[in-house]
């Protein structure tokens, strides 16, 4: 199976994006931004429809629309009194509806729609692997070099500000990085399931970790095992790739949860 070029690309993409989502997910979940990534992902459908209508590779308009939506969220948060959830729900439904309407006007793209909704890692081309590699390098570089700043921002923004950090700049950078990762991960898991790779690995890691370093490392590991394991399982049993990756991650989460519950039960003092 490893001699097939499409499988090599699929495994490479899983190997890049699995740990990247695992790492970023630690901060996404702690900062309660899972809905943000869902909004960006769902809105990307409008970009896909636009790309297909114009006869372009949909990856680029998809990336562009995701970035526009992310910036709109930040702008509306700053300029209006609306709750963040309201802003995100508004943009998500608006852009997703525009995408669905766009697809209904285009003829003969049902397979494409399915591919973007549920992911199709096996159809990934070399250009997308390079794009994923570029995003992997940039995001990891920023995350590792600004890890202390990002951690302090997650602890409390006021404390980060008094410690001399540019809270606005860091928030902006984090949102842009997250948007890039979500947009590129849509090819791996699809619009519907992409957030799961940002949420399940850190949740799994938390059941086992006793400090942040362990949490980050375990989340990276779960991202790798879930991503690569899911691709291999989907090939072996002829299953859809994105959902298989998610189910692999869920299985790892359940194992960690069981382990955590047993450990807690053993630590509980025995009542006489």
């Amino acid at each position, binding site marked *: 199976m490893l001699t097939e070029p499409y499988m090599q690309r699929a495994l490479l993409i899983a190997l890049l994006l699995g740990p990247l989502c695992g790492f970023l997910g*630690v901060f996404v*979940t*702690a900062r*309660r931004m899972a809905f943000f990534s869902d909004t960006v992902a769902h809105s990307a459908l409008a970009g896909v429809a636009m790309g297909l209508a114009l006869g372009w590779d949909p990856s680029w308009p998809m990336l562009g629309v995701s970035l526009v939506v992310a910036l709109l969220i930040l702008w509306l948060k700053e300029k209006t009194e609306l709750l963040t959830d309201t802003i995100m729900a508004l943009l998500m439904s608006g852009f997703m509806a525009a995408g669905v309407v766009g697809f209904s006007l285009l003829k003969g793209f049902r397979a494409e729609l399915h591919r973007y909704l549920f992911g199709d890692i096996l159809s990934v081309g070399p250009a997308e692997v390079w794009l994923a590699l570029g995003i992997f390098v940039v995001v990891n570089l920023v995350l*590792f070099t600004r*890890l*202390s700043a990002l*951690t*302090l921002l*997650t*602890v*409390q923004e*006021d*404390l980060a*500000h*008094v*410690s*001399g950090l540019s809270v606005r700049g860091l928030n902006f950078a984090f949102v842009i990085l997250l948007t890039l990762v979500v947009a590129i991960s849509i090819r791996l898991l699809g619009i519907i399931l992409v957030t799961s790779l940002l949420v399940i690995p850190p*949740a799994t890691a*938390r059941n086992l*970790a*006793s*400090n*942040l*370093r*362990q*949490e*980050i490392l375990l989340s990276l590991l779960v991202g790798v095992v879930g991503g690569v394991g899911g691709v291999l399982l989907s090939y072996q049993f002829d299953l859809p790739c994105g959902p298989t990756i998610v189910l692999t991650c869920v299985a790892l989460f359940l194992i960690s949860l069981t382990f955590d519950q047993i450990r807690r039960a053993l630590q509980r003092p025995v009542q006489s």
Partner: protein
Amino acid sequence: MADVRFHPSGLALEVRGLKVILGDTQVLRGVDLHVPRGQIVALIGPNGSGKTTLLRCLLGLQQPAQGEVRIFGQRVTAEVLRRVGYVPQRLALDRSFVLSVREFLSLRLEQTRNWFWQQRSTLDGHLRAALPEYDLEPLLDRPVAGLSGGQLQRVLVAFSLLGKPEMLLLDEPTAGVDSPGEQSFYELISTIHRRHQMSVILVSHDLSMVYRHASRVYALNGVICCEGTPEEVMNADSLKQAYGIHVTPYHHDHGPGHHHWVNVQP
């Protein structure tokens, strides 16, 4: 040219004619404060009196509609804030974010900023050297989100001290802390103040503790209603002015200086 209205030599904090409007409400209506260096100053006032808004202005987190804040004679900038340690009331930290106390403290120290790649013993060595009089050893492995109120406040003070501040700003530090914890926390602040000759600005609603530990008290209710030593400010009339209620001290048998303050009537 230096602003002649300000005298940077002796003052830790100067606030002039500060007005803040939030929505339709004028929360601060012209606050003036002059806090000399090296004192423990308490800012008291009822809920909604603008204590938190004033604190946010001091930290540059809230832009005033009018007026000016100067810390050590300078406008509030990132550079000036390096000389300030801030101790928030609490952290809105998700319990599942398992940041340990060791990792949290390492974020503030230059030598341990790369904590992710450093050995535990290396981090501990740096932290011990930076805070020699502070016994944090038993807490270092604990997750920050799992600390009790009193433990968290001690850790937050330690975090501020790692930045070697000349001024500490504490926002209702003992809210949600039990009575013995509250007592030992204020003793810790007094010790730090004595040892480092640091300016301490304390936002508090706890009149008994303020009475015992502050060298100067400002009562706020949109404006500074009264200021002076604890004895001067905490007479019933001054507090009535600030709180809009009648408050009276009663003495009990814990020795001199042990007053309790009770609300007598609305």
